[in-house]
């Protein structure tokens, strides 16, 4: 951005930042043992790798435990109001496309009160990163069920069990034609770092769901597939161009049978070549949608990058319309504009 001829935000030169440069002086106030700590650490580790000047990052959040995140990242930050972070981020990014804008949100923030903004930020393909901390519970309000809570969940507000069917965040993102959809797990720090890095490098909307344990109100929500002893058997890491293989012994895979996915064991005539090969770059998100619907125990829980395609972004299209107007009509002249239409002179 040019400001009276002066460049704001030094984009030239070598940017050499460390994780520590993104740590603020604010005391982190999540509950001890919260999965948020891990996501914060991995984000702070990812940011220096992007080689973007620190002052060009903007972290925007809504309301909820996860939304305290911007206070702990030493960059520009905006702790907004409940559900509205994608809309605030839209204003920031559309006004200033050169900024790296991140939305930090939770399952209630993004999918309940902010569902509309979530959906529209995605379908516009705004070039921002949305990281959704999914703990399947309302933590900050002390333990009510959330839109991702499993059916029948007993909580303070649902003593007889919830009668809402849960939302699958990935399916919502894919249904809105998200150009990047990924998923990771708070405790799998290496994987989390890889997915965040890929999301950050993606041009266009990047949506990442992170399974995040709330050890106070929903402890162990994901442990049946995230615990180390089961993880390889009960999750599957999606890698573009590779067959869908999983299991401690790498002996199980996913096959497409007609219009359905199925788990098969390798051997007995079934080889790798029978398995589905992951194509994250397919313009058609249908397979990604099918993968997103896989869930334990019928299937392993998929993590990794489901879908990553290129498409012009909202912010660049908006900027292009401004530039196009200027080249077509010339830079606006206020005097001329005020006197447009039929005018007359009174002597």
């Amino acid at each position, binding site marked *: 951005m040019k400001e009276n001829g002066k460049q704001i935000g030094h984009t030239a030169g070598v940017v050499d930042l460390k994780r520590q440069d993104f740590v603020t002086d604010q005391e982190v106030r999540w509950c001890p043992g919260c999965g948020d700590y891990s996501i914060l650490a991995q984000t702070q580790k990812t940011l220096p790798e992007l080689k973007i000047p620190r002052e060009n990052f903007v972290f925007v959040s809504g309301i909820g435990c996860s939304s305290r995140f911007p*206070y702990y990242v030493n960059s520009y930050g905006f702790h907004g109001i409940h559900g509205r972070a994608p809309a605030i981020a839209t204003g920031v990014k559309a006004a200033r496309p050169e900024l790296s804008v991140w939305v930090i949100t939770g399952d209630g923030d993004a999918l309940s009160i902010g569902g509309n903004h979530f959906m529209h930020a995605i379908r516009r393909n705004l070039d921002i990163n949305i990281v959704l901390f999914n703990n399947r519970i309302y933590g900050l309000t002390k333990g009510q069920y959330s839109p991702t809570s499993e059916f029948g969940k007993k909580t303070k507000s649902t003593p007889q069990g919830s009668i809402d069917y849960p939302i699958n965040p990935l399916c919502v993102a894919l249904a809105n034609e998200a150009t990047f959809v990924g998923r990771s797990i708070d405790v799998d720090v290496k994987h989390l770092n890889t997915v965040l890095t890929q999301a950050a490098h993606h041009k266009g909307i990047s949506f990442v769901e992170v399974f995040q344990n709330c050890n106070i109100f929903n402890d162990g929500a994901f442990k049946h597939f995230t615990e180390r002893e089961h993880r390889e058997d009960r999750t599957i890491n999606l890698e573009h161009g590779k067959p869908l293989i999983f299991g401690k012994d790498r002996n199980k895979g996913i096959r497409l049978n007609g219009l359905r996915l199925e788990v098969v064991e390798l051997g007995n005539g079934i080889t790798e070549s029978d398995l589905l090969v992951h194509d994250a770059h397919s313009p058609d998100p249908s397979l990604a949608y099918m993968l997103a619907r896989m869930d334990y125990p019928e299937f392993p829980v998929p993590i990794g990058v489901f879908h990553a395609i290129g498409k012009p972004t909202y912010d660049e299209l908006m900027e292009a319309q401004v530039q196009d107007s200027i080249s077509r009509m010339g830079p606006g002249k206020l005097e001329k504009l005020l006197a447009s239409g039929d*005018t007359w002179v*009174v002597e």
Partner: protein
Amino acid sequence: MQSIETEPRKGLIEIENVTIRFAGDSGDGMQLTGMQFTNTSAILGNDISTLPDFPAEIRAPAGSLPGVSGFQINFSSRDIRTPGDGPNVLVAMNPAALKVNLGDLEKSGILIVNSDAFSDLNLKKAGYEKNPLEDGSLSAYRLISIPLTDLNLNALKDLGLSKKEADRCKNFFALGMMYWLYDRPLEPTLNWIESKFQKNPTILEANVRALRAGYNYADTTELFTTHYRVRKASLAPGKYRNITGNEATALGFIAASQVAKRPLFYASYPITPASDILHELSRHKNFGIKTFQAEDEIAAMTAAIGASFAGHLGLTGTSGPGVALKSEAIGLAVMTELPVVIANIQRGGPSTGLPTKTEQADLLQAMFGRNGECPVPVLAPATPADCFAMAFEAFRIAVTFMTPVFYLSDGYLGNGSEPWKLPRVEDLPNIDIQFRTDPEGFHPYLRDEATLARPWAVPGTPGLEHRIGGLEKQHITGNVSYNPDNHEFMVRLRAEKVARIANFIPEVKVFGKPEGKVLVVGWGGSYGAITSAVEAMQERGKSVSSVHLRHLNPFPKNLGEVLSGFETILVPELNLGQLLWLLRARYLVDALGFNKIKGHPFKISELVSKLEELV
């Protein structure tokens, strides 16, 4: 209509002032007809004021009473301020239009009707048992009954248009007749037709023919024995254009952006009667403007806040129901102390209310409609042309004080029009924006001593990385703080910041003597009617003065003193007494309200009667 002098020729009579109302089905093109008549009259040098009045339904059932659309124009050789209390001339394109509007037509006024539209079916739809053109019930008026549909079809018959296509030109036939009747040139409308329909020569030709045929018909038929001339008004010297309030609002915002040298970011969700501002701004992207049609009102507000955080002039526009949705986010802008302007083009409420009708009932919403102690400056333009100055002023205040600002226009101002004397760009007030760039001693909630504004430090500035949000802020550092003393301090500081704006706005000027019997206090779009009524009283030697508030929060500094100079304070408003409530609370004056909630602006005569009662 006062007759001044008569010239020989087919009775050309000079008159000072005429009010015409065009009325028809909402698909009859009455708004377009009215606007063409307005433009031509403006170019001719008359003073003008207009009142479009249309239904919320895009095409209500043809011929029905709810489907009637009207456009009233007052044009004059003297200075006028309102669209006129009631029409001297009514053009009714069908029975429903006659039924809805006849009550407003002055006795012995000219009534022009399209007799072809008075079929049994249309009469029944309008609730007429007998044809009023035939039963003598219109004898109080100068009825001119014309088979307009047939005349128009005949004029276009060899063009190969379908009957429906040809019939759509009949409004221009009517317009042509009115141009003859009031001695107006055809050229401005002919030029408009040519540029509008250049891609469709047949439709172009049809409209040209309809207009000319109407004009010639009026000239030759025996139905019209005289026509009228309204001379130029003696407006102040300068270059003028005709402008609606919504256009002027958009231009005011663009001007603020140009003077402040910061790009405008307009985020809005379509809503009547504010959408025209979105349409207008989206046409001027070569001024670096970005327009964002948001998914909802809340997104529009929060995106404007985000753009402001990023260093643009954040703006949103809506009407009352939209403001209700934006309330929480406006509080966020108050807490984060970011400059955004919220333009509320008020309409009849509550709830969906009367979308296309005017009202001034959102003043207290603007003042108080948020949780917590949440002060926001409030401004209101007085006339369609004044929208330019006040939209500009809204941004001047927003960026000077780092605060959201309410700009309260209304449907009457937004859609109404008047001649606007173009300001000189170099005469516009200065808006000086200095982003903070120096990291030395920087804190996000430092204060400017005079304005109490905090620094505007935008992303991309090295060394000024900071976090803001809706949680209470610690004084100076901007860190989250739950400290009780700090909270009270900050609440008082935010209130004081808005109160201090009074030091930076003009004092109110009294229209009339500074002391006396009655002072009329108005705000917003009632300026024209109030000033005309007060002037009429003054001409009758009555002790009546007025002030008109364009700054409603804070009030101008001298307002209390002005109020104390009068025995009676009268506050006319298109609500149940909202400014009245504020004035009584603030100044402990026993002011009286004069209230109208009919979706229509005040008439001068209503105000004069009330004032007569008081003096």
